[in-house]
């Protein structure tokens, strides 16, 4: 499958071009993307720490996960809203960037994992401190989201 025409089209969108032609737009959008990164980290880690038997470990997992979920969805939405324009502005570079593909694949896996397996584990609500399946779920979640963060940072170095 030849992806170049699609990435070329992305690169040539008016949004992509406007960002490339501006001195400050990329910087400002990227700063929003960073705030979103921190928020996403918080909404993910507050639950994953609990699954590991740390953090708010006296609270039921289901309560924490229900409280964190709107913020997870909101912050991931902020990441998409800020990340897509950043991508459009340098789509061609992304196509040939290894970290970009690591990020996209990790992101897909992280989202699927979070809203299927991890959601089932948190809703089942292990009450004792971090049983093994809960710990493994948390570690997979952290590893997948770290893949997203790793790729995101290293797109900039390539």
């Amino acid at each position: 499958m030849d992806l170049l025409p699609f990435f070329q089209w992305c690169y040539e969108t008016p949004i992509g071009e406007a960002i490339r032609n501006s001195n400050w737009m990329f910087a400002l959008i990227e700063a929003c993307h960073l705030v979103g990164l921190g928020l996403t980290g918080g909404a993910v880690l507050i639950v994953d720490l609990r699954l590991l038997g740390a953090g708010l470990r006296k609270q039921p997992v289901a309560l924490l996960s229900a409280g964190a979920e709107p913020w997870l969805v909101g912050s991931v939405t902020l990441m998409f809203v800020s990340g897509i324009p950043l991508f459009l502005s340098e789509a061609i570079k992304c196509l040939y960037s290894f970290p970009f593909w690591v990020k996209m694949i990790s992101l897909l896996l992280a989202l699927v994992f979070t809203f299927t397996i991890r959601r089932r584990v948190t809703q089942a609500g292990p009450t004792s401190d971090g049983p093994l399946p809960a710990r493994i779920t948390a570690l997979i979640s952290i590893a997948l989201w770290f893949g997203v963060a790793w790729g995101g940072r290293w797109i900039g170095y390539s």
Partner: protein
Amino acid sequence: MSFLAFFEQLAETSWSVELHESQYAYSIVESIHVWTLCLFFGTVAMVDLRLLGWTMRGVPVSEFARRVLPWTVLAFVIMVISGTLLVYAIPVRTYQSIFFRGKMLLLVLAGLNVWFFHSRVYPKVAAWDLDGVPPRAVKVAGAFSLVLWSCIIFSGRMIAYNWFDCDRQPQPAIINFLAGCVPTDSGR
């Protein structure tokens, strides 16, 4: 010794040069600084959102303070160590960056907010520990924290851009003043 002379001397040290010129070390330190943001700003934000009554209203605020803030402190230590190394790698330019200066000022304000919260607001936590939506003073501290740390992220990110660097003259006089540019050796 002036601050500028101090940073100029830092720039002369061999470790500073090596960190600056290394192929991977600088990028790795910078990455650690960014990734730790997830733990630092993430835990700060969750605590602030609880103080505002915007999440997990059923969890006592004191639980958040006891069980989550230690992670915030750990992350802050990593942020300070990695951040100091980043300054050490590029001392003079960073010292003369208006965004770095703005970030340090905002850090002082955020620190004052932390001090105000823990010395004036939090000692009375027993009275509102279980409140889904805490009293006004608590919410204000949470909101200040969220806004200040977001601004710190913004100014930190902007340090990477050279729009107002001393070696890019002419700059408006106000910029040169705020950045502490010395026009004679600023490549005018």
